[in-house]
């Protein structure tokens, strides 16, 4: 039996981007306001889950052809390298630095190595959550 999922599919196409942007927002805002890599990652994966609910695993896999295990690995490596980078500058492991830059469009912005670390967290969380859901969902 083929069900008619038109409403949910159409809504999803809109809502997905809203959730995606929200996830990006709370990821970047994390250093000053509530949020951060962890929550951002979770929200991101919930957006993908919504896609999976509206369509199906196969379609989503075609839409977003990513291997989440690789995403996890990349995230872990980014975090580790950020943490390890400090030892090249003769400072203890996990020493962060930050400075303020005048960026076009954004104006004065702080760039903080902690953000790179948080990017790693974000990717790991997305990778892990999606891996689990995909695995369990795809299993018969």
């Amino acid at each position: 039996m083929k069900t008619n999922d038109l409403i949910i599919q159409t809504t999803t196409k809109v809502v997905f981007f809203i959730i995606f942007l929200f996830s990006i927002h709370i990821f970047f805002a994390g250093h000053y306001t509530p949020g951060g890599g962890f929550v951002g990652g979770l929200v991101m994966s919930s957006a993908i889950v919504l896609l999976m609910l509206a369509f199906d695993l196969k379609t989503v896999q075609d839409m977003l052809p990513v291997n989440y295990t690789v995403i996890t690995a990349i995230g872990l490596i980014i975090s580790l390298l950020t943490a390890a980078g400090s030892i090249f500058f003769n400072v203890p492991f996990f020493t962060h630095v930050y400075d303020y830059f005048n960026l076009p469009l954004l104006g004065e912005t702080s760039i903080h190595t902690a953000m790179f670390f948080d990017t790693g967290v974000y990717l790991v969380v997305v990778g892990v959550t999606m891996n689990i859901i995909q695995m369990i969902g795809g299993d018969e």
Partner: protein
Amino acid sequence: MSLIFAIFLPIIIALVIPFLFKKVSNIHTGWFVLLVPLALVFFYGAYIPSVMDGNTYIEEFSWIPSLDISLVSYIDGLSLLFSLLITGIGALVVLYSIFYLDKEKEKLGNFYVYLLLFMSAMLGVVQSDHLISLYFFWELTSISSFLLIGYWYTKDRSRFGALKSMMITVFGGLMMLGGFVLLGIMGKTFSIRELIDQAPILAGHEFFVWALVLVLIGAFTKSAQFPFYIWLPDAMEAPTPVSAYLHSATMVKAGLYLVARFTPLFALSEVWVWLVTGVGLLTLFWGSVFAVKQTDLKAILAFSTVSQLGLIMSLLGIGSISYHVTGNLMTTFTIATFAAIFHLMNHATFKGSLFMIAGIVDHETGTRDIRKLGGLMSLMPISFTIAMIGSFSMAGIPLFNGFLSKEMFLDATLSLQHFNVHSLESWWILFPIVAWIASVFTFVYSLYFVFHTFLGKHKPELLPKKAHEAPWGMLVSPSILATLVVVIFFVPNYFSTMFIKPAVAAIQPLAYQVPADIGFKIKAWHGFDSPALYMTLGVFLIGFILYKTIEKWTPVYERIPAKMSLNRFYDGLMNLSDKGANRLSSSYMTGSIRSYLLYMFAALIILLALTMWIKDAFVMDLTYLAPIKFFEVLISIVLIISTLTILITKSRVTAIIALGAVGYTVALFYIIFKAPDLALTQLVIETVSVALFLGAFYHLPKMNKYENRKLDHRFRLNNFLIALGVGIMVTLIAIASHSQKLVKSISEYYKETVYSEAGGGNIVNVILVDYRGFDTLFEISVLTIASLGIIGMITVRLSKKKGDRKVEDK
């Protein structure tokens, strides 16, 4: 050749023995081995003249300098006597074994390696001045003895005997190690000589008696004293050269050596005197009485060894009384030590020869059962002569050395009357009486051993082999020993100056400076006024009557209930520890996770409650409490209701949804308590986990009939109590810890520096990625591992690969 090298020489030679056995197959390996003890006999023999003058030699090899552990070889009269016994009898035993063991049928490589290992170990025991190295060699004797007893490892009895001797002697060895460690703690040194120097100070120490008892247990187990003697009769499954060497002349005397060596240290305690004397006499009595019961030649000899070791032990005990008396009495009691060493030497000679004769009889007739033997005198005249010399010496009949030491023994027990301590005035008489009865039995079994084997009617039909005299090579060693038995009787004082006096001077350093101080002379004839003479005559008379009527009274032994036997006790103990441990572990290792959780939580409650109670830790302080708000009460009620729903619901779905409710309520709490990051995370995580629970629930298989009943919450009182207990304990601890905040929180620092140092505004996130990013790094690693684990569990299913065949169930 240095002293320490001499100790290790047998082990070094043992390394090449297997090659010799493999490569040189036309010469019996024993001939090569024989060179080792012979060389050592001459090496140690060269020390005799100098040691006779009271000189001592010491050589040290630092083994573990940082722990002050070294191998110290110390040669004085006592260790020299033992070293000569070990190497001398070792040489004779090796010679005997060359003819006893067949070079084609036996694994001679193994045999001689074990034997040489044992020889080194034994030399190490008697020459060590360092307690730890003494213990090291002591255990090496246990191990090599274990290997030798189990030499014919295809026989059940051999393995049983080996295991039994191992269990008992290693038990004693470990006890002894405990004693040694206590001594080391007390004296701050492991050197025996240094410990002896401070003996009077140590005697007042609270550990002194403990160390004494532990060391004695070690000595008693090794020397087969009551009640630890039970391993010795079972060790008779070893090849006869081993029995002759280990279980008559050397290893069993390691305990005696230990007692003798520690006498100057421990004799200051009366506990020592009475334990050594009492256990020695009891062993003497017990061993001699039960030797008559035995029907196996080697078993008779084993029991007689036990009994003779008891005799020497009791003499050492009486000898240590000399530390408690002064003047002439001191001399009276030191004579007991003299007698002990003298008998130790005599025993090694006659018991060694008797064992070899038992081996010859076994070898030439095929049986050791005394009921099948008889009338071998005309067939094996030389063996008979040697056996008679040995037995008569053991019985204490004149013209043989056993007579001299037996007389001295009886004298020594009588001398106890001069030692008036405590209420001993009337009790001392027991000792000579027991000794006398034991002597009577010794007389009986000695005659029984020799005459039942060699006299009477020959029963060739019962024998597996046709009896004939042994080859000359087998007779050489027992002949030498038998000759010594007679020679020692005629010139005892010659041997005494050479061996006994230096040894006694080592045991009794207070009484004698140099061996020449000992003016005592051994006399065969004491005159008619000596009470020992009449006791000896009584032994002969009563012993002879008992021997003649032996058929009449031996059935008495059958009357002794089998349950009383110590072997039964040992077997029972082994069984009990085996089965008991099994039953114990199967009683609590149920395999059910439910019961393990029960133990864990019960332990948690008990430990926490005890700690709280002992430390009086419960405090309730309301000053720091914040005012309670309406919302908090409301959400708490929701939380409690949903929690109770989980507990009492009959349906799984309800439980999962109620769990979700709990999660969202907690998220609400986070909002109220101003933790927006937590609230966000909690909300998303709760959603994901509830979804996972629902997915899992959907797939739950019907495992057994209980699964059908949805959630089966049968009420179990102990579960309820445990749960209640854990809840109460945790609550109490939370209240108590909240009420006594001893240290100020460090969060002020975060608040102050979050912008200036870390360039951030969200303290929580800055802590996560900056202040304490290390935790986060590993938490994301945990997440990765979890996801990889799930991938592994779902995709890798080896057991369900095609077909029925099960492949690797993982």
